[in-house]
């Protein structure tokens, strides 16, 4: 990076890194992994800054890099067992309030979805992007985006409903 480019890159990092981190956090579910993703994303942005800066929306490039890195990471880890994002309470324990914690459950289930499905949901419901924008970013069609969203929501709904049922039955379900 040339010295003349440093101020603009600095401003970009300060302005956009928080948003990138929040997206990374939702994609990965873990703070330290999100940190690593943002760090790697910013390094790539830095490496290609002149080209990215000349684009209409540097942020879109950065988001695309972030999503690709998250996908890469997931592919590498796909063969391994998922680390459950649970609260450490044993299976036999009955928490009568657990059914009320829908948002926690949603976030937990979100992390159990395949990365592509998870990504479209984050881009749709957190980044507020439309199907065409998501499709462009992920190199898939808008129709695929819609179907992934529908399937993702369906899985989340099933999980949340099952959790509610489990809570209602006092854990006997």
């Amino acid at each position, binding site marked *: 990076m040339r010295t003349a480019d440093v101020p603009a890159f600095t401003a970009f990092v300060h302005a956009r890194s928080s948003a990138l981190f929040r997206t990374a*956090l939702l994609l990965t579910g873990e703070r330290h992994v999100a940190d690593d993703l943002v*760090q790697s994303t910013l390094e790539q942005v830095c490496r290609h800054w002149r080209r990215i800066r000349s684009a209409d929306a540097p942020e879109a*490039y950065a988001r695309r890099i972030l999503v690709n890195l998250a996908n*890469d990471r997931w592919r590498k880890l796909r063969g391994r067992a998922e680390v459950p994002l649970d609260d450490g309470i044993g299976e036999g324990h009955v928490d009568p309030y657990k059914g009320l914690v829908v948002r926690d459950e949603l976030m937990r289930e979100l992390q159990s979805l395949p990365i592509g499905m998870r990504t479209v949901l984050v881009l749709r419901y957190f980044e507020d992007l439309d199907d065409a924008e998501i499709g462009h970013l992920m190199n898939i069609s808008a129709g695929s985006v819609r179907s992934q969203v529908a399937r993702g929501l369906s899985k989340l709904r099933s999980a949340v409903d099952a959790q509610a049922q489990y809570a209602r039955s006092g854990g006997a379900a």
Partner: protein
Amino acid sequence: MKDYDLEEELAAAMLDRSRQEPPRGYDVDGLIGAVRQRRRRLQTGAAAAVVIVALGAGFVSQADHDRASVPVQASTASSTDMPPSPPPIEPSSPTASAPASAPASKPASPADPARTTNALFLSALRYQNPATRSEVDPAEVAALFANESTYQRIWGSDSLGVTCGSLVDGVLASGEVLLYQGTQRLDRAPSLDFDGATGKVTDLTCATVAGDGKGGDPTVSGFYGGLVAAAKSGDSTAMTRLGKQFVTEDLRSDRGQGPTAGTCSFSTPRFWLADNPSSGTLTHGWTVNLDGHHGFPIEIDEKAKIAGSCGG
């Protein structure tokens, strides 16, 4: 749970989750250093490869000399003239760059240079305004510097060293620091160096910045700089005029914050400082401090208008 409930709940859950973990500051110098280091390694590797190829070529050439064959040229020699062309913006393993990137991420801490920057420029703004000069405690200012001599050299007796020799009434700090007189940005900007352990100022240099207005935030400097200029000139109509130009109608309405929307009721500020930039998908924000009071957040929408402030 019905579809629309689930979608709303999911969006809210994501928002909640994203707010649970405050983002860390990313060290730009560390990022740039890591990239430059990687590039140097690649160049060194390429150069080494060229040397090997050239040596091999020379050896072959020498060996074949008696047979009068055409010497093999090191065809890759030209690649040392320029850095390797960057690959397309494609995904790469995050772990590939992890070793170089690890030290560049750092947590916010009391030694955070951003806090020092905020305190230093607020002090300078206070000191440079006769009405608030008495609020400045020299000992507190001196404590922002790594040592007494640095304090004396940069702050001096009038604080002008901090603001590149000019009296200013506005500061925009987004990593780089921009200085304003009214709505006009100065063509010189300070750059600070900090002690890594303490976050205190070790040096300050001023450099010329392009005067084309890029790099700032026209909404912030236009609105708050405009209010400061109007307060100086006694222009009582400025708040309404600037409000229409820079604040959304909703926020200015009676349901919103009324005529002083965007200022937290400071209608005639003497100086302003905006820092702690934030960003959403289509919006961005700042923490704005008027007259050295407590800072308040503002949100600027995609139409470059202030759509929220003071928590409203």
